[in-house]
């Protein structure tokens, strides 16, 4: 086994792991973009309290918030092909694993961000919408031009926290069909060489740096978007 920690090996491991960041980034990017759109839809529909749909969305959110992401990924990975086969007779088993991972992340974000959006939208004083209606804007115009921009300003800090959380959650995806994100790569390197510690430390370092950068970035965005400077 040799030394537990070897600095040279640590340095050598870095360039082997860095390229896999693209996998990590792609999961984060897709799940944040599509997840945000889904979240806004979920929030708006929840606020409208449409019978039946409201209950269905309630169950969806409880499930997403009440079960571990790992379980959700399993359910999507093994359950979705059966469901699609049963409903539409289409075989999606051939899809690449990463798609199932993306779907699980998107559904998870739709619920978590959905609740963040919902409470932020509800915190906008009704007079803001009423003022929009009173000048003759449609409901859609009022939502997209008045309510949503104000909502986004409110949620920036929570959005940043959520994004950092999503980054960290990507460390789970290796468990599903061996997706090679940075964590997956570290694990395979460890298995191949018998030295896992250096690789895991590299991964830890990457996560720390990324979350510091993101925190700083969101701090800046938040500063810039403050229009209430009384």
């Amino acid at each position, binding site marked *: 086994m040799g030394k537990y920690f070897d600095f040279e090996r640590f340095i050598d491991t870095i360039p082997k792991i860095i390229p896999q960041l693209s996998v990590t980034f792609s999961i984060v990017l897709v799940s944040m973009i599509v997840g945000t759109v889904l979240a806004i839809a979920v929030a708006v529909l929840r606020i409208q309290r449409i019978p039946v749909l409201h209950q269905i969305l309630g169950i969806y959110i409880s499930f997403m918030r009440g079960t571990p992401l790992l379980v959700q990924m399993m359910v999507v990975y093994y359950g979705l092909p059966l469901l699609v086969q049963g409903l539409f007779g289409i075989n999606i088993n051939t899809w690449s694993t990463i798609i199932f991972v993306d779907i699980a992340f998107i559904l998870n974000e739709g619920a978590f961000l959905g609740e963040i959006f919902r409470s932020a939208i509800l915190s906008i004083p009704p*007079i*803001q919408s*009423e*003022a*929009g*209606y*009173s*000048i*003759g*804007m*449609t409901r859609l*115009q009022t939502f997209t*031009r*008045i309510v949503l*921009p*104000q909502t986004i*300003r409110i949620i920036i800090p929570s959005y940043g926290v959520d994004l950092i959380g999503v980054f960290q959650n990507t460390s789970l995806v290796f468990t599903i069909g061996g997706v090679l994100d940075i964590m997956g790569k570290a694990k395979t390197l460890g298995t191949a060489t018998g030295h896992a510690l250096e690789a895991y430390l590299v991964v830890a370092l990457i996560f720390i740096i990324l979350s510091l950068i993101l925190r700083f970035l969101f701090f800046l965005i938040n500063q810039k978007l403050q*229009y*209430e*400077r*009384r």
Partner: protein
Amino acid sequence: MIEITHLKKSFGKQEVLKDVSFKIQKGQVVTILGPSGSGKTTFLRCINFLERAEEGELRIGDTRINLRKASRKEILNVRRRTAFVFQNYGLFYHKTALQNVMEGLVVVQKIPKDEARKRAEAALEWVGLSNRKDFYPSQLSGGQQQRVGIARAVALNPEVILFDEPTSALDPEWVGETLDVIKKVAKKGITMIIVTHEMSFAEEVSDKVVFMDGGSVVEEGTPKEIFTNPKEERTKKFLARIIPQDMYYI
């Protein structure tokens, strides 16, 4: 001309408007007086469909609209021909004074941006706020915010402007300048319905004064009739309570 007939509105079991009818000629200024809770705000909100009435008809120009059953299209039509000045200003927090005035011009009236900006700047100048056009609402005093609200309403060139206690939320020091701007709007000949507690202002600008109490119109008449010679006991009581004695000499 705008006419509302047999307007009824309840919140739960509480009847807030009991068969209110109301008429205003083009270019007229009508003020609505009445104790708090008498349904004045609800009345204005029903006209602009911010509340949905249970019964009633609205006539605006040649258009007749059922206040209960109005379709989305009819509602938009009414809102595009009217403007609302809120007690708490209702400025868009995330937009500057100029953007607040431009919003309706660009988004609703589809006026090209350059033209809209010119009009919005002119409207802000008209209310004396040229030097505040790039300020956000949070950077403006209450009086300035309300003047932006009035500029936003006037710039849309509506057939009628509804004012809901436009100075009630203001510190006393800002009331005067805001009332002056509203008087300026009146001089332009724009049709206005104003809910207010400012009696001498009401007396000065109104063509007609309506006194509401308990969800009904109790009495209406010229300012002179209402202020110096009210007929109904409830009107007399209300005025005695709200007007300091020396006001009678104005």
